[in-house]
Structure formats: C-alpha cells, structure tokens
C-alpha cells in the first residue's frame, strides 16, 4: 500500500490531465457568462474556450497542451501574468472581450492575490474583461469574514472600474471595463 500526500508524489499521464482539466472546468454557468460577452472577437484564457467558433480565440497554459485535440486551434502560454502576451492580444487580436472562466489563476488564491490578478488584467487588457469567481475556491478566513465582505472589499479596491454580477451562492462574474 502506497500512502500519497500530494500531486508531487507521482507523475500525471495525459489521460489523468484530461480528467483534472474536465473537473476544473465544469462550465455550469457558461450560458450566463456568454450573455455578458459583447459581439466581436473574444479571447478565452484557461477557460475551455470553444475555439472552433471563429469569434473565440482560446489560450491555455502550456501544461495542458496534450489535453486538447491538436487539430483544434488553441494558443498556449507559459505565464498568465505576461505583459507581452496581453500586448500581443491587444495589438493583433483586438478583442472586444477577454473571458476568464474557472481559471486556475483565480482558484485557491488568497484575496490579496485575487486583487493583484484583477489589477493586472485591468492594467493589461484593452477590452471588457469578464472574470468568474467562485468564492468557495478562494482562500480567506471563512470564520472571520462573510463572502459579502470579500466582494465589498474588491469593489472598494476597484471602484467604478468593476461591476459585480451575482451568478449563484458564492459565484460571481466580475466585469472590468
């Protein structure tokens, strides 16, 4: 019997990565999120974007490269917080929106990291940016603070630059304009 503590204890096969990616991207709020996406080109980052649709350009982290059908046009990146990547998106794709849905960059993060990542997107993207947040997956002191306080603090940090849409209990869509 082998006792395992974490993912560091073994190597993942491509098949295992497919199972994990699917588990991380259940997409239960896809239709709700699409209703906020404006017409025009839309860049979906780490969001299982349907890149078969000609108006969607999907970006995925390079570690997931084997997960997707190689015939599907997906662009792979090494680092999410890359100014160069977003400069290229702004200049060459000129999207009307960027969507971040169930991304690892906004999961298991502290509220400080969450705000840093939002600020990075605000400063880097020249389009409407939609970010799905499930506060269940955010790391904060859940005995001390309510979810309403966390959302309130985000609003205070960003003021009018951010709109908050409630999708469900703990689930929000943040819109940066």
């Amino acid at each position: 019997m082998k006792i395992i503590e974490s993912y560091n204890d073994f190597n993942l096969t491509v098949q295992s990565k497919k199972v994990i990616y699917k588990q991380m991207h259940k997409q239960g709020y896809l239709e709700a999120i699409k209703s906020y996406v404006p017409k025009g080109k839309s860049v979906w980052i780490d969001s299982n974007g349907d890149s078969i649709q000609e108006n969607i350009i999907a970006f995925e982290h390079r570690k997931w490269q084997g997960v997707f059908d190689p015939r599907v046009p997906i662009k792979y990146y090494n680092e999410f917080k890359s100014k160069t990547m977003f400069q290229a998106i702004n200049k060459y794709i000129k999207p009307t929106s960027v969507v971040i849905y169930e991304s690892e960059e906004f999961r298991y993060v502290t509220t400080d990291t969450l705000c840093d990542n939002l600020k990075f997107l605000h400063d880097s993207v020249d389009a409407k940016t939609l970010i799905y947040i499930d506060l269940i997956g955010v790391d904060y002191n859940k005995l001390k603070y309510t979810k309403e306080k966390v959302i309130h603090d985000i609003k205070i940090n960003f003021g009018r630059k951010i709109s908050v849409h409630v999708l469900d209990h703990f689930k929000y869509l943040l819109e940066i304009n």
Partner: protein
Amino acid sequence: MTSWREKQKAFIPGEVELLQDQRILDFFGKLPVYGMGDVNYFRDKLNLVQEPVHQALAIINVKTSDTELAQLLRPIKKIDKVCVSINKFLIYTNSNNNQVDDDYDNALLHFIQNIFKGRRIDHYFVKDLKGHHFNFASPTTQFFVQ
C-alpha cells in the same frame, strides 16, 4: 458514479491511500465508529454504525456555515475518540467577527477547542492549501480529539 477520490487514486498505479484517509484508519482501528457526513468511503474500511458509541468520525465536505458546524458537532462532543475532518474552503460565516483569530487554521482550531473543551486535540492541516493535496476528495484539515 466514480467519486473524485477514486478518480484521483486511479492516477497512481497499484494500491494507494490518501495520507488523510490513512490517519483516520490508524486512529480508529476495528471498534465501532459513529459516522457523520461524507463517510461513505469508510463503510468497508471502518466498523461504521448509525448510533453514537465511544468513537465518532465527522467528515464535513459540503458547504457548511459555522452555526451548522457547531450544531452538527454538539451531539458528539462527549464521545471519547472523535475525528473531525473539514474541507476548510467549504466553511462560511454569515456575520463578520473581529474576535476570530486572523490565521484561518488557528481560527478553526479554536472553533473545535471551543466545542471539545479541555480535550487533547491533535491538529493536522496543510499551510497555504492549494489544489495539490486532494482536499476536495478528502479534507486535509483534521482534528483528532481524545
């Protein structure tokens, strides 16, 4: 339907056990254990029973408020040996409380100490827990009360 625990265990060839599950198995042995919450995985591994006995296992792996958690644990607070296993992401409060310790792991320990007053409690947790320790399959925050 295959559980998320079983799906992840299948990533590794051979017979495997998650560290947090093994701790539970080692703690209880063969004597009857009153099971509460997400204990299905242990049905064939522990002598689980429906009525409170001298041992109890509570696994909290669904969204649970602090008030609900206190109510859930109240019936087992006098039991000799208790393991409370909590997915700390799934706990929430409906009111801000400045008296609570700033460190969430300590705050959870104080919460459990307040229920199991004066008891010895061994506390296991993963600092800065991310998604690498199978927490949503089997909670990594555990309190062993004796």
